[in-house]
C-alpha cells in the first residue's frame, strides 16, 4: 500500500514511534559528524545528510555483542543465553544500508540460524529515506541496492517536496504507521508518478564512481587474477580492517569472554579478515599469512560467482564507505577496477 504524509505531520508520527520503541536515526554530533544514534525527540532526526560513515549494521550486529552469560557456581558453571528483544525503529536509513541489513539477515537465517542476531533483526523496523540525490562516493546503482528500493524495506519514504511518499513493504511497516492512521492518506497517482520520475533523475545523476562487478567476477571466479596483481594491490593496504568494519555486508567476528571473578559474558566482536591473525591457528600455522592471500580471500567472498549464487548478490551495496575509510588505496571500486583491467594504477 502506498500513502503520503505531509512534512508537518512527521513530528507527530515520530513522537508515536518514540512512545512505541527505541528510535535510531542520523543525528549530527557536537563534532559535526553524522552518526546513527538513539534519538530522544523528533527534532534531532536529520533529513538532509550524506550517509554516515559507520553503518547502522551495529543495531543488528553490535561491535561488541553479548551472547551468553557464564557464572561459576561451586564446581559447576551456569550458562544463560542473552537476547536483545528491544523494539527498534531505524529511521531515515539509506537504501544501501537497508539492503546491507537484508543481506546480513539472509546470512544469519542460513542453517544453523543465528537466533541472537535474528531476534534483534526481527524486532527492527526499517524506515528508509530514498536518495533523490546520490551521495558523492556511492555506486549503489552498480550493485542494485539504490538509490531507491523495490524491496527489503518496511517503510520507504521519498521526499516529494511538500510531503513524503510512504511505501509500506511489510507487516512491520504497516504496524509502524498504524498508530496514527489519520496522518497518512492514500497516495495520488501523481505522487506515485513523481516518485518514479525522481528515481530516474537520481539514477541519471550518478557520476564517475562506478564498479563493474560482472567482468571482475568472471576473472575472480575462474582464478584468472594474476598473483602478481594481488601482490601489487596488497602493497597499498595498511591492514587497518576499516573496509570490513564499515562494510554493511561484512559480518566476520571472533569470540571473546569479558569479565572476571567467576562471572563472564561471552561476546561476539567484530573482526577483520584482513588482519593477519584472523586465520592464525593455535599451532602457529596461518593459511593466509600473506596480505595478498587475505586480500584475495576478501574479494573472492565479495565478488565471486560462487558466492553470488549462494547469496543472490555481490557482497557490496555500493555505499562507498570503504573509499572513505581505507587507510591505503584498496577500496572496492579500485580493486574491482584493477581486476577488470588486469592492472593496478597505484
Amino acid at each position: 500500500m502506498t500513502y503520503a504524509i505531509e512534512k508537518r505531520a512527521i513530528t507527530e508520527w515520530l513522537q508515536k514511534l518514540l512512545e512505541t520503541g527505541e528510535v535510531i536515526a542520523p543525528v549530527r554530533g557536537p563534532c559535526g559528524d553524522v552518526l546513527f544514534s538513539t534519538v530522544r525527540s523528533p527534532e534531532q532526526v536529520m533529513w538532509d545528510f550524506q550517509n554516515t560513515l559507520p553503518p547502522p549494521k551495529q543495531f543488528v550486529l553490535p561491535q561488541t555483542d553479548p551472547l551468553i552469560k557464564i557464572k561459576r557456581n561451586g564446581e559447576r558453571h551456569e550458562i544463560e543465553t542473552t537476547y536483545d528483544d528491544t523494539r527498534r525503529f531505524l529511521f531515515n536509513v539509506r537504501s544501501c544500508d537497508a539492503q546491507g541489513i537484508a543481506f546480513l539477515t539472509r546470512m544469519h537465517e542460513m542453517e544453523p540460524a543465528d537466533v541472537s542476531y535474528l531476534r534483534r533483526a526481527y524486532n527492527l523496523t526499517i524506515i528508509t529515506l530514498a536518495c533523490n540525490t546520490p551521495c558523492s562516493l556511492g555506486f549503489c546503482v552498480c550493485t542494485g541496492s539504490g538509490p531507491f528500493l523495490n524491496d527489503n524495506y518496511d517503510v520507504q519514504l521519498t521526499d516529494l517536496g511538500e510531503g513524503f511518499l510512504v511505501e509500506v513493504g511489510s507487516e512491520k511497516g504497516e504496524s509502524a504507521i498504524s498508530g496514527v492512521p489519520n496522518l497518512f492518506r492514500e497516495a495520488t497517482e501523481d505522487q506515485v508518478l513523481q516518485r518514479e520520475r525522481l528515481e530516474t533523475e537520481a539514477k541519471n545523476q550518478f557520476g564517475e564512481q562506478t564498479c563493474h562487478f560482472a567482468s571482475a567476477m568472471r576473472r575472480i571466479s575462474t582464478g584468472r587474477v594474476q598473483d602478481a596483481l594481488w601482490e601489487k594491490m596488497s602493497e597499498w593496504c595498511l591492514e587497518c580492517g576499516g573496509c570490513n568494519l564499515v562494510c554493511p555486508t561484512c559480518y566476520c567476528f571472533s569470540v571473546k569472554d569479558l569479565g572476571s571473578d567467576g562471572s563472564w559474558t561471552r561476546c561476539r566482536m567484530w573482526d577483520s579478515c584482513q588482519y593477519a591473525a584472523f586465520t592464525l591457528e593455535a599451532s602457529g600455522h596461518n593459511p593466509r599469512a600473506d596480505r595478498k592471500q587475505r586480500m584475495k580471500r576478501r574479494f573472492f567472498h565479495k565478488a565471486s560467482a560462487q558466492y553470488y549464487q549462494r547469496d543472490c548478490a555481490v557482497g557490496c551495496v555500493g555505499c562507498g564507505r570503504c573509499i572513505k575509510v581505507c587507510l591505503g588505496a584498496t577500496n572496492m571500486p579500485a580493486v574491482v577496477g584493477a581486476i577488470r583491467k588486469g592492472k593496478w594504477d597505484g
Partner: protein
Amino acid sequence: MSACATTCPSCSCGCGLYLLTSNGQLTGVAPSESHPVSSGKLCARGWSAHEATLCGERLRWPLLRKNGKVEPVSWDEAYDQISKRLKELIEAGKSVGVLGSARATNEENYLAGKLARAGLHTNNVDFPYHSLCRPLFAGLEEVCGERIPTTSLDGIASSQAILLLEGNLAETHPRAASLVMRAVEKSAFLVTIGYRMTQMARLSSLHLATTPGNELEVIRGLLAAVLELRGLDRNWAAVHGEEYEALWRAVEKVERSNELRQAAEWMTRAERATFLLACNGGEGEQARKDAGAFATLAAVTGHLNRRGSGLLALVARSNVRGACDMGVTPERLPGYERLDDEQTRQRLEDLWNTKLPPDRGYSTEDLLQSVSGLIVLADDPPSVVPIGQRAMAAMEKVDLLVVLDAFVTPTVQKAHAVLPIASFAETEGTLTNMEGRIQRLRAAANSPGKAKAGWQVIGELCARFGAGHSYTSANDVLSEIGRAVPRYAGIAQRLSEDGWSTALLEDVEGAKFLIHAPGAAAVAESSCARWPYVLVRDGSFDWGRDPLVTCSPTLSRDYQSERKLFPNGFVEMCQRDADALSLSAGRRVRLRSVHGHAVVPIKVRRELKPGVLSVPYAFRDDLAGVLGRDSVTAVSVEPP
C-alpha cells in the same frame, strides 16, 4: 548508544575517534570524518582502541605489598604508607625519582614532574621512551634550536617529494603512512632510506639501501648532491656563502651516485617536501648525528621553514612531545627549557612556591640503577628501554617501587605499592601529537573499582609532599600548565569549545637555523672475514608489549603467537643467506660476536639484504649476549 569524541592513545599521529558506549559500557569505536588528522580513517589499533579498557586485566583497588603478599588497602592507607616510606628514604639520604610516561596525559606528566621537583626536590625525573628519542631530539636541536619545527601531518599528502628515513612507518604510524600513500598516488616522489625493503620502500620512487648503522653516509651523500646542485645556483650560493663553504668542505669527498643525485634533485626542486625521520633508538652518538644531518638536509633544501614543507620526527607513542613539553626529563624544565634557564626557574619557583633543585638528575636507565625509591606513572620501563632485562633487574632492587597504572604490567607485578588509575577511555586530559597538536581525551566510561583519574592521584601525592594545590578537574591542571609553560598558555580556553577543538603549538615559519656540518660517520660495524654478517636490533617500537595492545584480544594475537612459537626469540635473515647456510625457517643457529654468543631460531624475511640479520625489538633481550650494548654488531653464524 552514545558516542564520546576523544583522541586515539596509540601512536603520535593523534587521530580522533568516537568511543561508543551502551549502558555505560564501552562497545566499540567509530571514525570521524571531521577530525583534522584522521579524516574518517583509523588504523587497526584505532579500531580496537576500546578493547584494552574493556577486556584487559584492570587494576581496581590500591594495593600494598605486606610481608611479601599484595593486599588491597584504602586510598588513605596507600597514600600514608607511600609518603611515610618515601620520606624515610629521603631522610636516610637515599635518592628517589619519578618516571612519567609517553602514554600518560600532559596533566599526569606535568604533575609527575612537579611531584619530583617541588615535592621530592629532585631532578630525577624522566620517561622511559625518552631513552630512545633523546639523541634524535638532541640532533634536531643542534640544527633547529629548542623549538623543534614540524609540519602538519596533512602536509605530507600534498608534498611533491618525501624523504623517509625508515623504521617501519606502515607499522608504527599507519596514518602517516596513509598520507604518504596519498602523496605517491598524486605522483609525489617518495625516497626511502633504510636497510630493510619495507612496505614504504617498495612503494617508493627510489630506495636508498644502506647497511644497518650506515644511514649517515647516505644522508651525507644526499647533502653532497644537494650542495652540488645548489652550487650551480649563484644566487643561492651567494646568500648562503659561509654555511655553504663549511658544509661543502665536510661532505665534498663523499661519493655521489646517480641515485643520490636524482633524490637530491627531487628534494631540492619540490615546492613542498616532507622529511620523515623514524626514531629507531640507535646508539646515542650515532642517532644524534643522523638526526642532525637529516635536519641539515631539510634546511639546505629550503624545506625547514617553508609553509607546506617540514620535518616530522616519528616518535612512537602518543604523548612523547607532551612529556617533553611538560619537562618530564632530568635536563629540561617544563616548556622544554634548560635546567639553568633563570627566567624559567623563577617562574616555576613562584608558581610552585618552592626552590627548585639545581643539579641535573638521572635519565631513565641510570635512574633505575641509582634510586632507592621510585614512582612509575603508567609505564613499564623494561618493555621500552634498550636493555630491558637490566631495567627489570634494577627495579627488583629498588626499596620502594610505587606504580600508577590502569593495566597489569610486569612493572606492576614488581611494585610494593600499586595505585589504580583510569585508562585513557575513562579520563579527561590532553595529549600532544608529533605535529604539536594538543587534543583532548574525554571520559567515555567510568573507571573500574576504586580507580581514580591519574591527575587526581598524582595531585594527592603532590599534596602529601607539600607541593599541593587543590585541583578539581584535569582542566585545572591544564590551566596551571598554561602558567608553567608559556606555549601552553590559553590552551585550556582554546580547547573548551565543543567538537574537535584542537590547538596547534605555534608555527616556526621563518625561523633561523644553524647549519651544522655533519662529521663523517664513525665507521659502522661492518662485516669481515671473521664476522661476515651484521646483526641489527630493529628499533621499530615494540607495540606488542604496550598494554593498549597486550590487553586487546584482537591486537595481541600476532604478538602472543610469536612469543609462544619463539619463547627465546629469533633472528631474521633473507632467503639467500638461509640457502647459503642450508637452513630452513625455524632452524637454530649460533650467533657469535665480540660480546658473546647465543643460539636462536631463524625466520626468513624477504625484506632483508644478504649479510644482514635483524632481531625485532621485542626479542632484543634474548640476544643481549650477542649485541652487548650495541644496536649493530658484526657476527658469525654457525651450526648450534
